[in-house]
């Protein structure tokens, strides 16, 4: 990877110059300072990443660059783009700047495209909005369309002449994001603000989009402001990194320097919290599958789960002939991208989904003949941790009530007994026992996820199903929760099905790993073997796509994996 802080052949001045930016949101209860003091420059052809966790002000900063903040926001300072201060220019001038000098790529491509207009129309809208202003002549519909086709071709949409007339739902997720980028490129702006451009995408698609963004910079000299929380993405793409924390810039350095020698404590902590594939593996040093002496708790044989199709359309096979076992005390990591069927399997084991074929044996119970009444006694042996900690607690009940619920249902304790047990559990997940009296919304995301773990473990179950338990959390919170999870698993000794899309996270916790792809188990083995020496092509691609938080290593990987990625 080459780092061009000043790419030759471009104008000398920065394309974006933010000077002492301050953004305040006026609310009834007083002002909320979203951005306190941010200054940064972006040079032509440079990729600058703004990194931070939730509440850091990175998205607000990004929106300020295009003047997209709501009216309740008050901005101070200066945001200069080609000599225009976005904060103080008129609405008309702002419209001219948007799209022509600076454009935006959004996080969620499926919502950033209007479902009822063709993609060509949407791209042309931007082109026509600038026709007739700033010395440009009017653009005919035909010409606008031709330019839309050109933009689509630039971002690698095959057969753009046809696809220009397609509606967004006719594209896949990755293609949609390409279309969004095409719309941003339509007027060749010198600067693109990409707000979490790959967060909503699967890791293999993320790799393609990152490559596209890199090509844009290399071929057209477009500067990019990359807003992200993902240090792997930063290491892969950014030349320079600005770390933000609670509205302030904590540290700014070139990408290499930042990852190699972070100066500030916050940056160090943040980098240490990022899971790094191949480091800290739970199966490190193992050569054969552990825990095989114990009882088999879950056994799937040729398991098939179909969702019925509607009115003549064929049934959708979410899980297709999957076989695996989970033994006592074992952590089984199930990894796959969206639509791989991993969540469906977890839900089927907990009796939330019905199985339709093959065999799924859970604690001696055949799920093919599932009846709530007969399965109920087994439920106390199964704990479940959901992905979204905010939604997994009844907002009307206290944390104590929620955590105690399994206990109350299965063993009918006295109030004092229940309270005591809840207190113990909360303490073992490192929450003060007094939190039992709080309501869910009074806890932070990480605290809620710990309480969720306490609820799952209160009956001392033999089996725990954790469905993406940390993917809704900030990376530093995730690190703490994962560490806690590891400790508790060793202490309680339950078996666990750990479901995640994140290879590095799965590897940190699991002894045995299964890789799912489109409902099929393509590979399973020891964590270190699957990650270190993948056998199946899909696993290889998955691992090759995952960016590691180290620019040099990532650059090497990118070269080495080029062939795999384009297969």
């Amino acid at each position, binding site marked *: 990877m080459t780092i061009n802080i000043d790419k030759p052949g471009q104008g000398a001045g920065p394309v974006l110059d933010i000077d002492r930016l301050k953004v305040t949101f006026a609310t009834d209860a007083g002002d909320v300072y979203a951005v306190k003091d941010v200054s940064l420059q972006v040079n032509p052809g440079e990729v600058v990443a703004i990194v931070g966790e939730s509440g850091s002000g990175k998205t607000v900063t990004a929106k300020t660059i295009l003047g997209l903040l709501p009216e309740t926001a008050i901005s101070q300072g200066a945001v200069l783009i080609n000599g225009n201060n976005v904060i103080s220019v008129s609405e008309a001038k702002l419209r001219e700047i*948007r799209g022509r000098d600076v*454009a935006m790529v959004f996080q969620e491509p499926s*919502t950033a495209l*209007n479902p009822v207009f063709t993609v060509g129309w949407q791209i042309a*809208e*931007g082109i026509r909005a*600038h026709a007739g202003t700033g010395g440009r002549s009017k653009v005919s519909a035909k010409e606008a369309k031709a330019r839309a086709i050109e933009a689509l071709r630039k971002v690698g949409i095959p057969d753009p002449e046809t696809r220009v007339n397609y509606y967004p*739902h006719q594209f896949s997720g990755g293609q949609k994001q390409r279309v969004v980028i095409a719309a*941003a490129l339509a007027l060749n702006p010198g600067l693109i603000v990409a707000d979490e451009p790959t967060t909503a995408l699967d890791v293999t698609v993320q790799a393609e989009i990152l490559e596209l963004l890199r090509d844009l910079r290399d071929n057209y000299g477009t500067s990019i402001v990359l807003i992200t929380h993902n240090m792997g993405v930063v290491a892969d793409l950014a030349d320079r990194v600005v770390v933000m924390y609670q509205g302030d810039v904590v540290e700014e350095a070139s990408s290499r320097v930042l990852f190699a020698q972070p100066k500030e404590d916050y940056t160090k902590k943040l980098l240490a919290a990022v899971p790094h594939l191949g480091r800290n593996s739970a199966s490190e040093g193992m050569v054969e599958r552990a825990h095989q002496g114990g009882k088999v708790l879950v056994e799937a044989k040729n398991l098939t789960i179909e969702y019925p199709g509607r009115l*003549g359309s064929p049934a959708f096979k979410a899980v297709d002939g999957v076989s695996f076992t989970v033994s006592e005390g074992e952590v089984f990591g199930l990894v796959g991208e969206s639509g791989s069927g991993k969540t469906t399997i977890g839900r089927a084991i907990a009796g939330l989904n019905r199985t339709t074929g093959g065999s799924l044996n859970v604690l001696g119970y055949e799920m093919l003949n599932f009846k709530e009444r007969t399965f109920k006694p087994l439920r106390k042996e199964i704990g479940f941790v959901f992905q979204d900690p905010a939604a997994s607690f009844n907002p009307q009940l206290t944390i104590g009530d929620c955590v105690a619920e399994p206990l109350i249902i299965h063993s009918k304790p006295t109030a004092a007994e229940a309270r005591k047990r809840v207190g113990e559990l909360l303490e073992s997940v490192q929450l003060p026992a007094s939190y039992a009296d709080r309501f869910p919304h009074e806890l932070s995301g990480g605290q809620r996820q710990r309480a969720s773990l306490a609820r799952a473990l209160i009956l001392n179950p033999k089996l725990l199903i954790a469905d993406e338990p940390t993917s809704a959390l900030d990376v530093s919170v995730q690190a703490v929760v994962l560490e806690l999870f590891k400790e508790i698993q060793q202490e309680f000794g339950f078996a666990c099905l750990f479901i995640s899309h994140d290879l590095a996270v799965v590897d940190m916790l699991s002894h045995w790993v299964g890789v799912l792809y489109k409902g099929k188990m393509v590979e399973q083995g020891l964590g270190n073997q699957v990650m270190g020496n993948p056998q199946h092509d899909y696993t290889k691609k998955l691992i090759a796509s995952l960016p590691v938080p180290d620019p040099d290593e990532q650059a090497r990987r990118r070269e080495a994996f080029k062939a795999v990625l384009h297969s």
Partner: protein
Amino acid sequence: MTTLTEAPLNDADGLLPSKKKSSGGGLGTYILVRFFLIIPTIFILVTLVFFLMRVIGDPITAAQGGRLPPEALAQRIHEAGYDRPILVQYLEYVGQVATGNFGTTITDRRPVVEMIITFGTATLELAINALIVALLVGIPLGLISAYKRDKAPDAVLRFFAILCYATPVFFAGLLMKLAFSVWLGWLPVAGRASTRTELAMGSLAAPTGIYWLDALRSGNMAAFGDVAAHSVLPALTLGLLTAGVFLRLVRTNVIGTLGKDYVEAGRSRGVSNYRLVTKHAYKPALIPIITVMGLQIALLLGGAVLTESTFEWKGLGYQLVQYLNARDFVAVQGIVVMLAVIVAVTNFIVDVVAALIDPRVRY
């Protein structure tokens, strides 16, 4: 007086998934499935109305009881078959309805279908006029309200919308009569047309029954002017009620879509606010708007009954009240079932139109 509650239920995205799912094989399947859904709806309403009306007793006794001697009454009941088991009568009625036969009225002994066609055109005319008013007033004002959200024009328009809804049509009609007919003397007090025009319209060869259309076709401009003058107040009365609901509907849904990422994406490309509201936000909002508008046909018909009574507009609603007062339940049943069919079919058409706008269903 249905509604005001359904807009929050059918928010912008609420309707789409179900439609998407049921589409399965695309638009054709969707239309087919949606069409077959009409049948249970009509069937349930026919059943409901039939049994409800029979709870009171047989229609002949209801209409003629006390006026005819008991023997004659029994004779007529027997002739009409009302002394048979209720289930037999029900099955017969369902069969008749399925073949388009609604029976004969008891009081004036007319075939119900003929009566419905005669008076239905007047109601249709009123409904069309009102719908034009509602669309012309409701949609643009709703867009303005959404565009100026939480500013003075929005406040005024929202208040106007609630006022339109809060004013019963017969009171609105009364106020308009007082103002424009009695005090200002600009417009006629009641009726569809003056006697002279009624006669002229009646003597036409192949009338559509919709007066302004007939007047135009026969080139009788004096009649057209007369019809137009008579139409203004009823159309405004019924139209403004519906306009209030439309305004609110457009406002809510456009505000919903204005908050979507794709509108911000448009803004980030320099698209003007005007265009963002009228194109980028309006078209996706149209799908739920049209669907809910379809449900307002019930409101419109309910309002038409009251409007017709207020303005002595001799349509189905006016006639329904006459038959109700005469306790002619065969006629009442016929009109009510007919209105149910109209509602069901309109909702079907509206859903198909909404599906046509939505490319996710179309492709």
